[in-house]
């Protein structure tokens, strides 16, 4: 809870003022029935019209004051709550950005969305309601009770005797409902995840005529959600009618006892007194009902808070490192017995030991699932090695926060995301470059002709995930983006796969010029790409199989030779032969 309301401090003065205004306006509301009793007792019953006038004038004054107070306090309170909601939203978003990518994936986009928007909204809604009630409830309760006691301690006592019953009702009804709310929220996360997955795979879903299947999944999650909501609500809905009934019984009892009291000689109780007590009972009833409403919201509120808190207290990927140390490497990389496992059992990568000098261009080559991309993830600080160490410039990178590691890496990944927005802001991700720099990155990224076709130029609007771009254009936007980022190490993880060979050869020429002196790691399937590199690392089944130049590897590494042959038009047959041998 404390995590969520951390930033509430700056709203405290405003909330205090709001509270005071609320208190005043509640006092006005309390004053009205008192004045009304006066009208009946001292005015109408006593035949004193003068008194009626006076009381009515007082009522009018109180009413006007009341309106002013309410409007003003609304304005203040409303602004404070919405301001707090804004802060909370931003805080959650900021937190997600600081979480490790792994953690983000664990929650899933759907779950994160509900938490950062809907759950935050709901929390603030409840807080707002509670704050406004917090002002009126104690006052109505206290003032009502005090006034009722002043009129008749006996009658007021009856009412008080009934309140524990109401408390019991609230307790019994609210018990164990939080699990329903938790399930409902989880199903909502699931709906979100399902819908966004379905939208992103729309063409596949439709191609396989699976719209119904997808719809079925969403429908099931929705039905489960509604079942839980109904269950949770049903219990909460019991509270008001039962409490109301209990308090009504109290009212009846008060009338009966009151009537009895009047019949006794020497009684101080008047008819107006009884009427007033009933009025006050009404007031107290409203107060108690408000409290019970508020209590009935608690299970749901707690679930929401728990979900948001879980995010806010999640680990910060950049915390827990020796502070103040920045990592500025020269571009040399050393792997020392590096191994990694995604699941905990079975290594996706193991025993990788290699040395890359600053300024070298190195190719990673190997079969599908050989561990190349896993190694790239480690270099980007998206994952940490399960065993072994990676050194940049002879500095163990595990001692640095990921954000420092990433300052040394500019990376294009296999399926990188292009964000919606102007072409310029998509390429200039950090937003720190001038137009000329952006243009040169685009030119080197082979987007010159694309840019020339667009009248809007740099302001060309890219759709969500760059969907108004072809696969190759998307890759080139990603490449340009990475070229613009200045780092000692550049990684291209299979990022030329959607480019035709002509474009790739132009790109490679541009890279050679632009990135001279920088370390380049190129993950590729193409021997033609690898052969021009200073060094080639051949991966096989999560292990580093061989290191060397093209010529060296063709001689010494069977695997590399096979890959090489498979890519020569003439080599297909030979590869087939090798394959059959394997079988």
């Amino acid at each position: 809870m404390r995590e969520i309301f951390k930033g509430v401090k700056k709203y405290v003065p405003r909330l205090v003022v709001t509270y005071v205004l609320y208190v005043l306006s509640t006092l006005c509301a309390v004053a009205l029935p008192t004045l009304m009793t006066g009208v009946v007792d001292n005015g109408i019953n006593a035949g004193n019209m003068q008194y009626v006038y006076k009381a009515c004038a007082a009522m009018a004054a109180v009413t006007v004051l009341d309106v002013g107070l309410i409007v003003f306090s609304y304005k203040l309170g409303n602004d404070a709550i919405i301001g707090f909601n804004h802060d909370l939203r931003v805080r959650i978003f900021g937190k997600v950005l600081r979480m490790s990518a792994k953690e983000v994936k664990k929650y899933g986009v759907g779950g994160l969305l509900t938490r950062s928007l809907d759950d935050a909204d709901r929390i603030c809604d409840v807080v707002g309601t509670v704050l406004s009630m917090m002002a009126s409830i104690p006052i109505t309760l206290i003032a009502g009770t005090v006034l009722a006691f002043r009129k008749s301690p006996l009658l007021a006592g009856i009412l008080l005797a009934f309140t524990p019953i109401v408390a019991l009702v609230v307790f019994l009804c609210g018990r164990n409902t939080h699990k329903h709310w938790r399930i409902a929220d989880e199903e909502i996360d699931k709906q979100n995840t399902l819908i966004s997955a379905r939208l992103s795979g729309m063409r596949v879903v439709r191609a396989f005529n699976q719209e119904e299947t997808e719809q079925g999944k969403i429908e099931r999650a929705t039905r489960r959600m509604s079942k839980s909501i109904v269950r949770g609500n049903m219990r909460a809905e019991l509270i008001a009618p039962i409490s109301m009934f209990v308090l009504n019984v109290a009212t009846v009892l008060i009338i009966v006892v009151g009537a009895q009291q009047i019949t006794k000689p020497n009684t101080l109780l008047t008819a107006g007194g009884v009427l007033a007590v009933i009025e006050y009972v009404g007031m107290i009833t409203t107060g108690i009902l408000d409290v019970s409403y508020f209590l009935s919201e608690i299970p749901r509120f707690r679930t929401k808070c728990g979900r948001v808190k879980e995010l806010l207290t999640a680990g910060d990927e950049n915390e827990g490192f020796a502070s103040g140390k920045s990592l500025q490497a020269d571009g040399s990389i050393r792997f020392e017995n590096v191994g990694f496992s995604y699941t905990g059992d079975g290594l996706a990568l193991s025993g990788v030991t290699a040395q890359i000098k600053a300024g070298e261009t190195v190719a990673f080559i190997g079969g599908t699932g050989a561990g190349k991309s896993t190694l790239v993830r480690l270099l980007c600080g998206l994952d940490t090695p399960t065993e072994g160490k990676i050194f940049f410039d002879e500095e163990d990178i595990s001692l640095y926060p990921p954000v420092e590691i990433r300052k040394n890496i500019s990376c294009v990944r296999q399926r990188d995301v292009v964000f919606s927005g102007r072409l310029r802001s998509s390429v200039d991700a950090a937003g720190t470059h001038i137009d000329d720099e952006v243009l040169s990155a685009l030119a080197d990224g082979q987007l010159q002709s694309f840019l020339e076709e667009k009248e809007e130029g740099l302001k060309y609007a890219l759709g969500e995930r760059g969907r108004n771009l072809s696969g190759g254009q998307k890759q080139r936007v990603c490449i340009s983006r990475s070229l613009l980022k200045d780092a000692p190490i550049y990684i291209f993880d299979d990022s030329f796969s959607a480019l035709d060979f002509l474009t790739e050869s132009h790109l490679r020429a541009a890279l050679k010029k632009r990135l001279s002196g920088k370390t380049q790691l190129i993950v590729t399937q193409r021997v033609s790409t690898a052969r021009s590199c200073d060094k080639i690392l051949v991966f096989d089944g999560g292990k580093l199989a061989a290191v060397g130049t093209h010529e060296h590897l063709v001689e010494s590494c069977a695997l590399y030779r096979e890959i090489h042959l498979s890519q020569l038009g003439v080599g297909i047959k030979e590869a087939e032969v090798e394959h059959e041998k394997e079988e």
Partner: protein
Amino acid sequence: MKRKNKEKKKNTGVLWALGKMLRDLSGIKLWLLAIVFCAVGVIVCNVLAPSFLGSLVGEISDFSLAQGDGKAFLRGLVKPTLFLLITYVFYAVFSFGKAFFITNAMTNKITAGKRIQLSDKISRLPLSYLDKTTTGEMLSRVHSNVGMMGGNIHETIDVVIMGGLQMAVMMVMMLLENAVIAVMVLLLTPISAILATVIAKKSAKEYNKLWEEYDAIYAYAEETYGGIETVKNFGMESGRLEEYTKISARLADISKKANFLSSLVQPVVGFVNHVSFIAVCLVGGYLAITGKMDVETVVTLVLYSKNFSQPLMQIANGFSSVQLLGSSAKKVYEFLDEREMSAETRGFSAPVRGEVCFEDVEFAYVENKPVIKGLSLRAAAGEKIAIVGPTGGGKTTLVNLLMRFYEPQKGKIYIDGEDISQINREQLRENVSMVLQDTWLFEGTVAENIAYGKAGATREDVVRAAKAAYADGFISLLPKGYDTVLSDATALSGGQKQLLTIARAFLSDKAVLILDEATSDVDTRTEIYIQKAMDKLQAKKTCFVIAHRLSTIVHADKILAIDKGEIVDVGKHEDLLRKGGFYAELWRSQYASA
């Protein structure tokens, strides 16, 4: 998102949406009937209770003035007290009944029902529409807007049914008691209504803006969370946070305005209400003192006018709920009203052999910027067609058109001589299978993902397909083999994902097969093995292969080189090389160095 529709749309107002909603609700007449029944029950109790209470108080007041026989007086109280108690019992039963029926009916019909309906609507919308909407927008529609509808409907029903009926009943009762006072109370009511309407109009505008901002923030958050690794790699955290803060602040500003405006209703109505209460006191007091009316009646009236204020205040209190309901319903029903894809009912008249023909096809995603211009091609049944050319040249668009994801603006596409625009989309896709460059796997087991295209596939079928696609090897290394659940957290390489989607296509055995850069992330050795498997599989299939690695398509029956939306080269590999055109140039650039 600007989506200016040039067609005139008459159906867009809040009232239109609420009308639509009412029509929807008519499907659950019995529930509504139960709700109204309970509501009326509550109202009757609400009217009876103060009346009994009033007479009790009157008795007490009379007694205190007259000081008669105490016992007789108390005995006289028994009956009204019992009545009052019974009324309270019914009141409790009816109000729970009302809540019960509303919660059940609305959660199922609105909160869940609309969500299901909206998500179903997505399946009937053309991709050209979905392209223009962000995932965030869609989630905000399905989730937030519907949630708002469901969340506010309860209060709205209270307001409309309860408040309205209660006021009417109270009015009648008051008229029966004393016409003068009743008329006075009545006269003051329209003032509340007028003031409320004025405020409503203003805040409605703000609420509409509010939803747009919600769409925006959903979209931004969705995109950021979905691309978190890219965000991190490029150190975009601070920039993203800054932009998000801006969007959130805009949302907060509009929320402040909208909420404040609609919250004005309550104090305004309360004020008018108090004034009417004072008037009742004055006139009632005067009438009682001058002896024109007995005290009991005046007290009852005072209580009525106070109770009369209750429904009014309830309406005022629930006012923002009505507004939220209206504006979110508007969003929901506007979306449900979007134009859907045409729904042809015709299937192919005979089993599909797989002859594909494009005839003078022209297509543009954006008006006046054609991606495909006057393209014609013919593939005989069983032929293997390769499509090559630079990126952005329109290769994938051909696939999109053949699958009817989009409809060509000009020209026709035929399969087995039948115009596919006349064929039911599902029937069409029943006969075409496809592997895309962008792999798509859903959260489910490996086996489920492979069997996606084929209902009722056995485990043997799945394993056979996986073996053919060379996916069996890595699948058996996964923690639970074919039963491993794939999620965002499962780390499959791009190539492995492609192998799974290829297995999927292998399993769904169809007359036409499209491979759009299907093996781009697969290493070349595996690719060759897959090629072999495919050759077997493709023997009788018409096959379209889009590929960059030209070595994979040299055996194609026909190679089409496409550039800037036009076919620039057609023929067999050897012929094209000899001819020395566009294709030969491509080939040289790829294999000159090898």
